C-alpha cells in the first residue's frame, strides 16, 4: 500500500497543523504557569503541598495496581487490616544453611521489612513482596537497608535467599493443573468407554474445542506429522486459556495473574523453543547455517538467522505477558477512576467501562491462547517442513 496520498491529503495536513498548533499552545501555557508561580512563592508553596497530596493518592493507586498484578505470599480474599481474610501460603527458602520452611503468617502481612522472622538460626524480613536476610539493627523501624542508586531509585542492599515459596501464582498453577487433569482424564476415560458412540456431557463440550485445535491449528501448519505435536498444542492451549480465564475471576480460586507473569510465559516459550530445536530437520538447519543467498551476504545472514531462532519464542513470551498484564492494568485503572475523581457520580461510568473491558478480556483470553498455540504450531511447522526448493 502506498502511504503517499495519506501524507499529501488536505485533511491530514490540516490535522497535522492543528496538532502542532496545540503543542505550542500547551508549551506556552506551561511557561505562563511557571512564571505565575514564581511571582508568588506563598501560592506556589500551597500548590506544591496540594500537588504532593495528589501525588500520594496517585502513588497509592499505582501500588494498588502493581500489588494486584504481582505475585504474593498470601492469597487475599477480602478485608483490610484486622478484617483481613485470606490464605497464608507456605514459604520455602533455600538459604546459605539449607532449606528453610515456615508459614507466611509469621510475617503478619508485613511488607516493609519491619517484622523479623527467626528460623533455623537465621533472621528474615520481607519488603515489597521479596524476602531478605534481616539486618542486625533496625533503621527507622525497618530491617532492610535502603540506598539510592545513580538513577535516584531506592535499592535494597540486603542479601536475598532463593525463594521457592508456594506463592499465589504457584498455588493457582497447581490448582489449574489439577483442574485440567480432572477434566481431561474424565473426558479421556469416557472416550474409551463410549467408543464409537456420540459424545456425552463434558465430552461433548470439549470435543469441538479439541477438534478446533486439531483442524484449525495443527493440521494446516504441521501437515501430515501433526499427531506428534497434538499433546503439546492441546496442553498449552488449555493451560493458557484456563489461566487467562482464572485471572479474570476476581475472587478466590481466580485472581492470580499467572499468564501475566513473565516467568510463566518464559517457560512456555522455552518449551516451544526446545521442541523447535529438537524437531528441526536438515532443511531447517541448512536454511540457518547455509542460507540460499549470494555468498557475500552469508556473513550477514547467518547471524540474523541465528538471532531469528531466539526472537520467535521471545516474541511469544512478551506477547502473552504484555497482553494479559495490560488487560489487568486496564480493568484496575478503570476501577480506580472512582478513587481518582473521589466521587460516587463517576461510579456508574467506571463500572460500565469495567464490564465492557472485562467482556473484551474474555475474548482476549481466548485469542491469546489461540495465538500462542497457532504460532507455536507455525514455528514447529517451519522447522519440520520437508522441501527445500528455494
Amino acid at each position, binding site marked *: *500500500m502506498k502511504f503517499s496520498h495519506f501524507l499529501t491529503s488536505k485533511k491530514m495536513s490540516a490535522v497535522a497543523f492543528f496538532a502542532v498548533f496545540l503543542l505550542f499552545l500547551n508549551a506556552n501555557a506551561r511557561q505562563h504557569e511557571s512564571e505565575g508561580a514564581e511571582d508568588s512563592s506563598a501560592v506556589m508553596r500551597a500548590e506544591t503541598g496540594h500537588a504532593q497530596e495528589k501525588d500520594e493518592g496517585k502513588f497509592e493507586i499505582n501500588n494498588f495496581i502493581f500489588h494486584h498484578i504481582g505475585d504474593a505470599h498470601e492469597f487475599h480474599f477480602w478485608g483490610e487490616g484486622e478484617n483481613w481474610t485470606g490464605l497464608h501460603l507456605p514459604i520455602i527458602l533455600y538459604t546459605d544453611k539449607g532449606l528453610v520452611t515456615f508459614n507466611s503468617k509469621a510475617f503478619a502481612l508485613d511488607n516493609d521489612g519491619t517484622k523479623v522472622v527467626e528460623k533455623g538460626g537465621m533472621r528474615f524480613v520481607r519488603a515489597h513482596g521479596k524476602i531478605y536476610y534481616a539486618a542486625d539493627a533496625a533503621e527507622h523501624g525497618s530491617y532492610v537497608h535502603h540506598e539510592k542508586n545513580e538513577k535516584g531509585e531506592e535499592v535494597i542492599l540486603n542479601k536475598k535467599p532463593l525463594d521457592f515459596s508456594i506463592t499465589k501464582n504457584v498455588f493457582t498453577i497447581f490448582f489449574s493443573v489439577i483442574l485440567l487433569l480432572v477434566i481431561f482424564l474424565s473426558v479421556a476415560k469416557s472416550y474409551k468407554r463410549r467408543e464409537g458412540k456420540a459424545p456425552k456431557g463434558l465430552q461433548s463440550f470439549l470435543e469441538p474445542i479439541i477438534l478446533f485445535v486439531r483442524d484449525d491449528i495443527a493440521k*494446516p501448519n504441521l501437515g501430515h506429522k501433526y499427531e506428534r505435536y497434538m499433546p503439546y498444542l492441546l496442553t498449552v492451549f488449555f493451560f493458557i486459556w484456563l489461566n487467562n480465564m482464572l485471572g479474570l475471576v476476581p475472587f478466590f480460586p481466580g485472581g492470580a495473574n499467572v499468564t501475566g507473569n513473565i516467568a510463566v510465559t518464559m517457560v512456555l516459550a522455552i518449551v516451544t523453543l526446545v521442541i523447535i530445536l529438537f524437531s528441526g530437520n536438515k532443511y531447517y538447519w541448512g536454511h540457518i547455517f547455509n542460507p540460499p543467498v549470494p555468498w557475500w551476504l552469508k556473513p550477514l545472514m547467518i547471524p540474523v538467522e541465528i538471532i531469528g531462532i531466539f526472537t520467535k519464542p521471545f516474541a511469544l513470551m*512478551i506477547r502473552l505477558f*504484555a497482553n494479559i498484564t495490560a488487560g489487568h492494568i486496564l480493568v484496575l485503572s478503570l476501577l480506580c477512576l472512582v478513587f481518582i475523581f473521589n466521587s460516587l457520580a463517576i461510579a456508574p461510568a467506571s463500572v460500565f467501562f469495567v464490564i465492557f473491558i472485562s467482556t473484551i478480556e474474555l475474548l482476549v483470553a481466548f485469542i491469546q491462547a489461540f495465538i500462542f498455540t*497457532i*504460532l507455536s504450531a507455525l514455528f514447529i511447522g517451519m522447522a519440520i517442513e520437508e522441501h527445500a526448493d528455494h
Partner: protein
Amino acid sequence: MTGTLAAIGAGLAAIGAGLGIGKIGGSAMESIARQPEAASKIQTAMLIAAAFIEAVALFAVVVSLIA
C-alpha cells in the same frame, strides 16, 4: 520527564499498531465480502498478522514501562 516521554513513546507505538491492525482488519473485511466461503481461513491469517503487529506495539509498551 521520563514518564512523559514514555507516555509519548507508548502513544506513538499505539498509532503505528493502530494503522497496521486497521489496515489488516479492513483488508480482511474486504476479502471476506468478496469471498465469504473463505471467511475462516482469512480470519486465521488476519489474527496471526495482527498478533505480529501487536507484538511490536507491546514491545514498545514494555520498553516505555521499563524506561
